[in-house]
């Protein structure tokens, strides 16, 4: 009798513990883990689901640290980009990942006829829009700078070798967030984690949401406070990048000078758009295309997006919104002052 009672109590204890484990597991699986922090000189927002979400976040933060301090930043000493800049004029061997990134960017540069250019660095430094007191540079200074800018000044050779002409400066600012998104999704998949991660507003979407619904992604309203969406795009998997005239800019004599420079004119791009959002199969491509399309404008931009099988949302100065067919059904405008239009 006594032994039966002991066995019974053990069974009850086991069942209670079982419920505890299942409840905790279910809770951990369904609850999101949300962290916002700064890294790579920008804002990183993690929104992760799955048992390993916290472990994944630690690994993801380490990857961002690696990208910033060893690979991408031109401001820091001893990064690979800093080394490439220092070695301008010489043929050098780069890491396989750097070679891959540069080749991919170079393809978009060629296809956009230089609207995207990662050698725009001397010009960006002249404008210094992110600096304390930016002002419009003298026309002659811009001209001088433009002589040092041109994606064809970067050459590729076999065995992961490159050569950049002397005086040229590499700046991966336009695609760094996208590269980060690509690297982060690898970790998310390895850790079996679903969710979104935003690197300075470039977003990667991985896996299925625990409730089975599609992910909802807001498109920043170019003329409202940061964090206010003008529309919502639902998607299951992929990468989203936006380039706009609103993030970094200064106003001089009533004119807005933003940070996306047109490598042909040496001035902020003036294509009639306030923002371009691209959805593509990888982060680097979506980042590269959003910058290139913003510089090119809607008419040329849509052709470029099509070439890369990417989807796009263009917003112009009059708040007209143009959306490619592939995502039109998944996109909804949520602000009355924006209106959906057909491409001309």
């Amino acid at each position: 009798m006594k032994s039966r009672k002991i066995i019974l109590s053990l069974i009850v204890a086991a069942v209670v513990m079982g419920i505890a484990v299942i409840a905790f597991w279910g809770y951990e699986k369904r609850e999101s883990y949300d962290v916002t922090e700064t890294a790579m000189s920008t804002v990183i927002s993690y929104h992760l689901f799955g048992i390993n979400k916290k472990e994944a976040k630690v690994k993801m933060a380490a990857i961002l640290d690696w990208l910033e301090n060893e690979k991408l930043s031109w401001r820091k000493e001893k990064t690979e980009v800093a080394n490439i800049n220092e070695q301008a004029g010489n043929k050098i061997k780069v890491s396989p990942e750097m070679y891959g990134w540069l080749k991919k960017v170079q393809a978009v540069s060629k296809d956009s006829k230089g609207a995207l250019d990662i050698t725009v660095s001397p010009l960006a430094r002249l404008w210094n829009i992110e600096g304390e007191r930016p002002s419009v540079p003298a026309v002659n200074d811009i001209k001088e700078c433009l002589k040092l800018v041109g994606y064809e000044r970067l050459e590729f050779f076999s065995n992961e070798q490159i050569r950049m002409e002397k005086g040229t400066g590499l700046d991966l600012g336009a695609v760094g967030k996208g590269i980060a998104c690509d690297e982060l999704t690898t970790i998310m998949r390895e850790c079996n984690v679903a969710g979104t991660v935003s690197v300075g507003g470039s977003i990667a979407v991985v896996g299925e949401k625990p409730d089975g619904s599609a992910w909802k992604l807001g498109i920043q309203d170019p003329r409202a406070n940061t964090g206010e969406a003008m529309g919502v795009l639902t998607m299951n998997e992929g990468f989203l990048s936006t380039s706009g005239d609103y993030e970094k800019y200064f106003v001089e004599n009533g004119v807005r000078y933003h940070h996306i420079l047109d490598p042909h004119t040496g001035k902020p791009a003036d294509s009639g758009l306030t923002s371009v959002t691209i959805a593509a199969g990888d982060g680097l491509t979506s980042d590269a295309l959003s910058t290139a399309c913003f510089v090119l404008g809607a008419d040329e931009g849509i052709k470029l997006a099509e070439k890369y099988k990417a989807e796009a949302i263009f917003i112009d100065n009059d708040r007209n919104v143009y959306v490619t067919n592939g995502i039109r059904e998944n996109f909804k405008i949520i602000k009355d002052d924006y209106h959906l239009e057909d491409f001309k």
Partner: protein
Amino acid sequence: MQHKNSIIRNDIFLILVLLLLSAAGFTILLFTRHAGKNVEVFVDGQMLYSYSLSDTVNEVINTKWGENHLVIEEGKVFILEADCPDKLCVRQKEIDKNGESIVCLPHKLVVSVTGGEEREIDAITK
């Protein structure tokens, strides 16, 4: 025989009560974890202050890099003023939902809402 039966009945009763209690316990645990609406202030990755979203707060946060004037009012959080060069923190939307944040990059300041109502969108482009 009857004696044995009543023991089994009592045992089953006990098991059911324990199961119910544990289920109720977990429900309460989950519920309370969800209900805590807090505002957490981080500087350079360290949490310095934590408020309830229902508090009224009018506080200047001093960082090594500069100041941000934090306001919590009627369940909404925003930065009223700051001496950072870009003022992007002041131009951010008021926040009040779980996982929403306001960031001042130059001052390495992050203000986040935890718990409470879930936000409608998972992420927003910039």
